[in-house]
């Protein structure tokens, strides 16, 4: 027993020693990386100052820390940022964090150490950024968030470029509203248009906003009482659940549903299969609109099984570069910048498909 205690205490001491050493190492590492910087930073900061006050012919360097490459959407996003940087004549320091926050923090620290002009990143999680953002602020480097937000103090970053999920939901409904008017469609039964909604994952802010945007848009039109949300259930953003839930909707009211709004493409694609199995024609009997506008949705629209896809674009590279230039030139930028997104009805799907990057 005593021996065990002794061993344990020795172990504890060792652990403490190691952690101390690790701390020291960290400190020294940051010191060593920082130590050559005072002289050079003094130089470069004065030069960057002079360049920003004088002419803007000095090439801007942007440090971008990407989440990883977990989906087609993200890959398209990375490609677009690289392309836009080249087109705008901005030197890009790109880092792939492979889904890990610590990698992203490391990347941001290395951007600070190498004194880039602007830092931009897409935060993997919302929390835990205060320290590193403060470091960037202390170093006088502006930070631009893209896509996802953080819970840190807004004074720690300059602006946030993101898609407007509320607007995406609203776009979806407004297109339906216009389409019904244009084609002079009438409800399949009764005198109101019955809507079925496939919601995103419960608890996701984007899913909630897309739904809210859609509902608010209904309330905003003058003949809001013409529309009735008959069913609304989560399809968990997956094709399998989208199909299962749609099957259930159809069992309850196949002859009533006029409109299907899916919070992402995958659920719409699953629902289309369910609608076909129920003996109805997707896109004709039921108007189908979804958000994302990935290639799968375009293929469905070309086959005439879907009516419209509202874009959730990864292509905000140009906007990011433009914003970075503005910030370096000392211009004021709003604290939140919304990406402009397109709406793609089925009749232009075939000609748009080659341009899709995701």
């Amino acid at each position, binding site marked *: 027993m005593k021996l065990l205690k002794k061993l344990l205490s020795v172990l504890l001491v060792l652990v403490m020693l190691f952690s101390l050493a690790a701390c020291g190492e960290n400190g020294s590492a940051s010191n060593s990386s920082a130590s050559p910087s005072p002289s050079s930073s003094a130089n470069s900061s004065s030069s960057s100052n002079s360049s920003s006050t004088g002419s803007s012919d000095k090439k801007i360097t942007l440090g971008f820390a990407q989440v990883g490459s977990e989906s087609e959407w993200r890959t398209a996003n990375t490609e677009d940022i690289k392309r836009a940087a080249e087109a705008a004549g901005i030197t890009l320091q790109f880092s792939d964090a492979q889904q890990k926050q610590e990698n992203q923090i490391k990347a941001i620290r290395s951007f600070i150490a190498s004194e880039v002009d602007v830092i931009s990143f897409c935060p993997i999680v919302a929390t835990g950024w205060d320290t590193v953002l403060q470091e960037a602020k202390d170093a006088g480097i502006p930070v631009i968030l893209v896509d996802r937000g953080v819970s840190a103090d807004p004074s720690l970053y300059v602006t946030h470029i993101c898609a407007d999920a509320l607007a995406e939901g609203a776009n979806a409904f407004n297109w339906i509203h216009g389409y019904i008017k244009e084609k002079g469609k009438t409800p399949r039964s009764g005198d109101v248009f019955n809507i079925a909604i496939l919601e995103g994952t*419960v608890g996701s802010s984007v899913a909630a906003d897309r739904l809210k945007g859609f509902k608010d848009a209904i309330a905003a039109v003058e003949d809001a009482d013409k529309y009735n949300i008959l069913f609304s*259930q989560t399809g*968990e*953003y997956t094709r*399998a659940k989208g199909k*299962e839930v749609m099957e259930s909707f159809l*069992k309850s009211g196949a002859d009533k549903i006029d409109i299907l709004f899916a919070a992402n493409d995958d659920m719409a*694609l699953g629902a289309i299969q369910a609608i076909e199995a129920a003996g109805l024609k997707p896109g004709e009997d039921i108007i189908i609109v979804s958000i994302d506008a990935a290639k799968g949705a375009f293929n469905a629209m070309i086959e005439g099984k879907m009516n419209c896809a509202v874009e959730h674009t990864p292509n905000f590279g140009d906007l990011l570069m433009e914003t970075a230039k503005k910030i370096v030139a000392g211009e004021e930028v709003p604290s939140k910048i919304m990406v402009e997104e397109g709406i793609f009805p089925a009749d232009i799907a075939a000609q748009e498909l080659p341009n899709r990057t995701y």
Partner: protein
Amino acid sequence: MTTLKKITSHHLFLPIFALFLLLLFNAFFTPGFFMIKFQNGQLYGRVIDILNRSSILIVLSLGMTLVIGTGGIDISQGSVIAISGAICCYLIGGSGSGEANVPMFIACIAAIAACAILGAWNGFLVSKLKIQPMVATLILLTAGRGIAMLITKGQNITVYYKPFTYIGNTIPGNILPTTIFIATAMIILLVITLKKTSIGMFVQSVGINSTASHYTGIKVNKIIFMVYVFSGICAGIAGLMESSMIAAADPNNAGLNMELDAILSVALGGTLLSGGKFYLGGSVIGAITIQTMTTTLYAVGVSSEQLPVYKAIVVIFICLLQSESFKALFSRIPENLKKSKLTEDKKVVMKV
């Protein structure tokens, strides 16, 4: 009285009773629940949907029942489903022309074989290296989706080859979904194997006491290894059905948390998670009950935020129904009532 007792004490009584209660609820509160009509030459209705979707869970729970029978557990099934779908869809290919790169039959066999190998890996870890089943299968649970992602290069593969959709839907000319036939065939094959050979008894004896089984001459390691391989094969078949149903491989979401549903259906069927005596029939009914529950909640139109809560309530209720101590509590109630009645009578007498 004795026949009634015989019925109520049968091991399948409570699982069937729970399912019956759910169906009874639907008979009153869900209009058209039992309605089945003929559409496009096939049967169409909620009951068919339930059978169609629960088939996947049934196949999974068959494998899980045997594993649990030996006192083990396999939490890697969901990930193996994703791998199976990924391999099959990758081999068939997502070409828009609707042609298969590799004949579908070979692709399916390859997927199932790969899953059998994954099952063998689990079995090897548990039987040879004596790693605890939960930990051993946890490895594939974590790594499995990564493997599936590697195969599909992180993207969903949509298959346009028509015959592939027949596995999870209906073969033209049939009136019932193929999944039901597959599940039925699996059940019959397994029951015959267990009845005609002594494997079923061996599995039980390993679950009850593996040391004693070892001394009676049963090859314990071999039995344990075998049930994990079988569980892998079941997950592989379930993966084919799942991906065929949506005509796509979805490595992120296919079979997600399905191993938990399989464990639940085994538990609802009356098999103890500690191993030993196992009830295949119970697991099958448990699987159907779980799917009925999901379909019921969709049919009633419970809002998406509250869905998990209602699911939990139903599960708690069914588990209570099966709990021995809870039953004992209830069987005492009539006696208590009698007692209180007696005392009341006494009081009345006293007053008079």
